[in-house]
C-alpha cells in the first residue's frame, strides 16, 4: 500500500484528496489529510461578513464532512517535513510516513510582520478581514463607525484573492450610502502597486470607478509601520496616512513549518514548476493552491483549475510516465463593484483579463469585464458550487485551461 499525505484540508487540499480518492485504487493508495481543526472556512465569504451580508455561521462547514469518507483526516499541528526521510512530524510527536506528499497549507495574513500593526489599536481601529476572527471583529467595528477616515491598505503582494481589497472598498462605499452616512466618510485606498488598476484593459473597463465613488488612491506605498498613537500609516518614504478605521491586508505568508522544513522561499511559499506544481527540490513533493510560488493569483479558482490539471499529471507520474499536461495559470474571479453588481475576469499566465463572454464564447451568459447583476448573482451562487461541486471534486462544466475564444484579443494587439 502506498501513502499519499496531504497537508492542509482547505480548498486545495480537500479538492486534491477528494478528486484523487475517486481515481486511485483503494487497494493501492491510502490518502490521508492533516489539519489542525475541523473548521473548513468558505474564505470568499469573509468579504461579505463585515457588511452583515453573511453571518458568521454561514461560512463554516466540517472539514471531515467535506472530505470523502474514505479519506482519513488526522487532526494535528505540523512541526516539520523530513523530506530526506519521507516523513512528517506533528508537534505532539506523531510521525506520518509518505510516498508522495502534497503541501496545501495555503497562506495566512501575518500582522506580526509589520511594526505596530498588532499594537494597542489592533482589533480596535486596526482591522483585517482575511481571517474568520478578523471578519467578525470588523463587522462590529463597521456597525459602530459613524464617519471619519476609512483607510484600506495592502501591505505587500502577493495576497490571497488580490481583488478583495478593491471589492471591500466598493462594498464599503455602498454600505455607507445605504446607511446614509457616505458624505461623512473619507475613503483612501493605499497600495504598494503603481495604482489600484495595473492591467491596461481592465483599468479601462473600470474607468474612473474609484473617482466616481470618491475613493482616493495612495499608490507606490510601502508601509513601514502603524503608528498607534497618531493612528496613522507611515511609509518608508515618510508619507503619513491618518485613519479612524484601518482595514489592512497584512503580509501573506505560507505556513511556518514550510520554513522549518527548508522547503520555502522568503515568505514560506514552496518553489515549484509552474506547469506541474512539483517541488523544485524533491520529486515526491507537490505544493498546490496558495502554498506554492507560481506567478498566478492566489485564489480558489486557480487552485481548482490547477488541481484539474494536477490530477491528470499525478496519475501519469505515479505510473512512471512523463507529466504531459501543463497548467496555464488560469484564474476566474467575480469582482463585487457595489450596488448589487459585479464584474467577472478570466485570465492566465499569458493573457490579461479581456472583455468577452463566459463560459461559452459569444453566448455567456456571464459578461467579462462588465458590471452586471448576473455576475453578482453568480458570485453569490458560487458558495453552493464551492461546497457541492468544487470541494467534492465533481466535474465542473467549464474547461480548466483558459480559452481566448470570443475574447477581445485584438485589444492587446492595439496596445
Amino acid at each position, binding site marked *: 500500500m502506498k501513502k499519499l499525505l496531504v497537508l492542509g484540508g482547505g480548498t486545495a487540499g480537500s479538492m486534491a484528496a477528494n478528486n484523487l480518492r475517486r481515481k486511485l485504487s483503494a487497494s493501492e493508495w491510502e490518502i490521508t489529510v492533516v489539519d489542525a481543526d475541523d473548521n473548513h472556512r468558505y474564505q470568499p465569504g469573509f468579504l461579505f461578513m463585515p457588511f452583515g451580508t453573511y453571518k458568521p455561521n454561514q461560512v463554516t462547514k466540517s472539514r471531515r464532512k467535506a472530505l470523502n469518507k474514505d479519506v482519513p483526516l488526522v487532526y494535528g499541528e505540523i512541526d516539520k517535513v523530513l523530506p530526506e526521510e519521507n516523513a512528517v512530524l506533528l508537534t505532539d510527536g506523531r510521525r506520518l510516513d509518505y510516498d508522495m506528499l502534497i503541501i496545501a497549507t495555503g497562506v495566512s495574513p501575518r500582522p506580526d510582520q509589520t511594526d505596530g500593526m498588532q499594537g494597542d489599536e489592533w482589533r480596535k481601529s486596526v482591522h483585517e478581514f482575511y481571517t474568520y476572527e478578523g471578519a467578525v471583529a470588523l463587522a462590529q467595528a463597521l456597525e459602530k463607525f459613524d464617519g471619519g477616515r476609512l483607510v484600506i491598505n495592502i501591505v505587500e503582494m502577493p495576497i490571497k484573492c488580490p481583488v478583495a481589497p478593491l471589492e471591500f472598498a466598493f462594498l464599503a462605499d455602498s454600505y455607507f450610502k445605504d446607511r446614509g452616512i457616505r458624505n461623512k466618510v473619507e475613503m483612501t485606498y493605499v497600495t504598494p502597486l503603481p495604482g489600484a488598476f*495595473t492591467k491596461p484593459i481592465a483599468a479601462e473597463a473600470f474607468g474612473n470607478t474609484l473617482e466616481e465613488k470618491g475613493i482616493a488612491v495612495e499608490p507606490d506605498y510601502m508601509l*513601514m509601520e502603524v503608528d498607534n498613537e497618531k493612528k496613522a500609516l507611515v511609509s518608508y518614504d515618510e508619507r503619513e496616512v491618518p485613519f479612524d478605521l484601518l482595514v489592512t491586508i497584512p*503580509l501573506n505568508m505560507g505556513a511556518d513549518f514550510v520554513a522549518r522544513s527548508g522547503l520555502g522561499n522568503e515568505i514560506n511559499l514552496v518553489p515549484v514548476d509552474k506547469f506541474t506544481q512539483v517541488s523544485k527540490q524533491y520529486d515526491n513533493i507537490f505544493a498546490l493552491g496558495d502554498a506554492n510560488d507560481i506567478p498566478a493569483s492566489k485564489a480558489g479558482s486557480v487552485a481548482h483549475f490547477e488541481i484539474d490539471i494536477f490530477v491528470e499529471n499525478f496519475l501519469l507520474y505515479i505510473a512512471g510516465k512523463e507529466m504531459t499536461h501543463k497548467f496555464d495559470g488560469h484564474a476566474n474571479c467575480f469582482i463585487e463593484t457595489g450596488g448589487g453588481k459585479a464584474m467577472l475576469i478570466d485570465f492566465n499566465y499569458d493573457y490579461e483579463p479581456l472583455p468577452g463572454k463566459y463560459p461559452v464564447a459569444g453566448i455567456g451568459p456571464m459578461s467579462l469585464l462588465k458590471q452586471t447583476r448576473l455576475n453578482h448573482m453568480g458570485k453569490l451562487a458560487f458558495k453552493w458550487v464551492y461546497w457541492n461541486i468544487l470541494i467534492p471534486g465533481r466535474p465542473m462544466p467549464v474547461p480548466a485551461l483558459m480559452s481566448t475564444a470570443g475574447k477581445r484579443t485584438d485589444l492587446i494587439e492595439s496596445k
Partner: protein
Amino acid sequence: MPTTTINGRDVTVDDEGFMTVYDEWDEETGKSLAAAIGIDMTDEHWKVVRFLREDFKAQGATPTIRRVSTAGGVDTKQLFTLFPKKPAKKMAYIAGLPKPAGCV
C-alpha cells in the same frame, strides 16, 4: 506595441515606456534607461538590477520590494535611497521588466 530607440537599437516598450521583451535588454540599455529617469548607476544599483533580471528569469514575475530586500539582500530603506520615491517602478523600468502588477 510601440517601439523606441535606445543606444541606436529598436526596443519594444509598453505605453509607459517599460520594455516588454526580456532579451532585448542588456546592461548598456539599462544604463541609458537609468539616465533617462535621472539615476546614475552605482555597484549597489547594479546589484539590485541584476537580482531583478535573474529572479524574473527564474520566477516569471518581477520581484516585489520585500523579495528584493529579503532574497536579494538590499533592504527597503536602501531601495528608497537608490531609487527615490518609487523604487518598485524605477528598478523594474531600469531592468527592462514589467512594472509590478495586480490582476486587474
